[in-house]
């Protein structure tokens, strides 16, 4: 059995007085596809934002590929990680956002090339080749010199995915990536995710409201409710055999 690539151990997170996550324990295996579902406000997004280091946990540990994400060793003690340590561990992780967050002053190709060239110091021609291939794969080969403002929401999100994949992360996080899209554009984005899920051997964590899609591609489904993982297992286990009433009532809302 391989070691998990990500481990959450008793992770808690509060914003002020509001306790968003109340003791999360979770293992994610390499190449595993995990879907996180649950009512809004249940802490789904916070789980992946902690992993991307966009928020700091209030307590608990997150271990990425054997390295403690938020703590580092100093003179034999575990202390709060500094930016260097965070950068070191964060390099394995990529993320796609609800609102795309493309860089508006750069072309599509530049958006995809910046990080590999400047962060990983890779050869520029090689990165260009890879970025163009990736953009072709998401169906935007003819748009590489356009700016984000010239694209539709679905196209922007496909660029955002290409930009993240070109960095070759071991773990990819998707934060409600179809929530900001017009309904007719959701399909094209889900197709790209499906393609990545089938052909890339990175772990993927999807926070999503696209229930059928999530259950279809996920190896593991987490049902998050009021800051705790209320249910987890394969899609089949969770949907067909769960006795959790809150989960059943949550799922029933997606079956009309």
């Amino acid at each position, binding site marked *: 059995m391989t070691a998990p690539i990500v481990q959450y151990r008793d992770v808690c997170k509060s914003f002020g007085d509001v306790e968003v996550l109340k003791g999360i324990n979770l293992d994610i295996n390499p190449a595993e596809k995990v879907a996180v579902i649950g009512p809004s406000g249940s802490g789904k997004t916070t789980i992946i934002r902690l992993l*991307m*280091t*966009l928020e700091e946990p209030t307590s608990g540990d997150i271990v990425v590929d054997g390295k403690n994400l938020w703590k580092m060793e100093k003179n034999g003690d575990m202390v709060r990680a500094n*930016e260097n340590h965070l*950068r070191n561990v*964060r*390099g394995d*992780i*990529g*993320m796609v*956002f609800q*609102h*795309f*967050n*493309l*860089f*508006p*002053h750069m072309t599509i190709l530049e958006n995809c090339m*910046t*990080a590999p060239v*400047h*962060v990983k110091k890779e050869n520029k021609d090689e990165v260009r080749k890879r970025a163009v291939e990736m953009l072709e794969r998401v169906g935007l080969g003819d748009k590489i010199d*356009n*700016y984000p*403002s*010239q694209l539709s929401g679905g196209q922007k999100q496909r660029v955002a995915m290409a*930009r*993240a994949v070109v*960095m070759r992360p071991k773990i990819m996080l998707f934060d409600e990536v179809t929530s900001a899209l017009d309904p007719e554009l959701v399909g094209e984005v889900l197709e790209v995710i499906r393609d990545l899920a089938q052909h890339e051997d990175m772990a993927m964590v999807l926070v999503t409201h696209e229930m059928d899609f999530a259950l279809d591609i996920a190896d593991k489904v987490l049902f998050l409710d009021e800051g705790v993982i209320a249910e987890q297992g394969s899609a089949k286990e969770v949907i067909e055999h769960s006795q959790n009433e809150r989960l059943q009532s949550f799922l029933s809302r997606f079956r009309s």
Partner: protein
Amino acid sequence: MNSTYWSWERFLDALPFVLDGLWITIVLTISCFLFSLLFGFVWTFLKRIPIKSFNWIVTWVMEFIRSTPPLVQLFFIYYAWPVIPVVGVTLSPMTSAILGLGLHFSTYIAEIYRAGIESVEKGQWEAAKALNLSTMDKWRMIILPQAIPPTIPMLGNYFIIMFKEVPLASTISVAEILLRANTYGARNFAYLEPLTIVGIIFLVLSYPSAVLIRKLEVKMNTRFDKNAAAKSS
């Protein structure tokens, strides 16, 4: 006919005398502006250092500079500072003016920088982090290219305001156009024509600059809308 209020002859006589001070006005405006651009950056940087007590001090020093009249600051730097033991330095009128006006306006410029930085969406900072950019690269490639353009019209406005504040330097004997006009007036007992000339010079130089800045503003507001740019080209 000797007792007319206005004489074109005197106007033409005073014109070259006053214009002689124009280059000093312009050099002083540009120097003050560059100084305040640079020092505005220093304030912005100091304010971003995440130490509460230090931040508090910086905020109050800035507030103090902003709430005192620039004229008082000029007088202090030129007349009072040299008298202070140990730290006292005697500065030339020109240097005092650059330091005084530049420092005063740098506190406003710092606010413009802050507004520019805050205008960059939170998602941009998060994307920079998710792509693991270094702090240096994040500022250089993501934040500043988006933060600077919207500040340009505002900075331009301050350039014009500063231009119009430069006559304050005449009070510490910098021979810019207002001092030249006053000198001419005192020598010939005629202030109307030279002071009118000063007014005209300011109008002629600031009005076109203001129009230019308004155009710049429109351009900056549509800078990311490449569709509009593509259609018009």
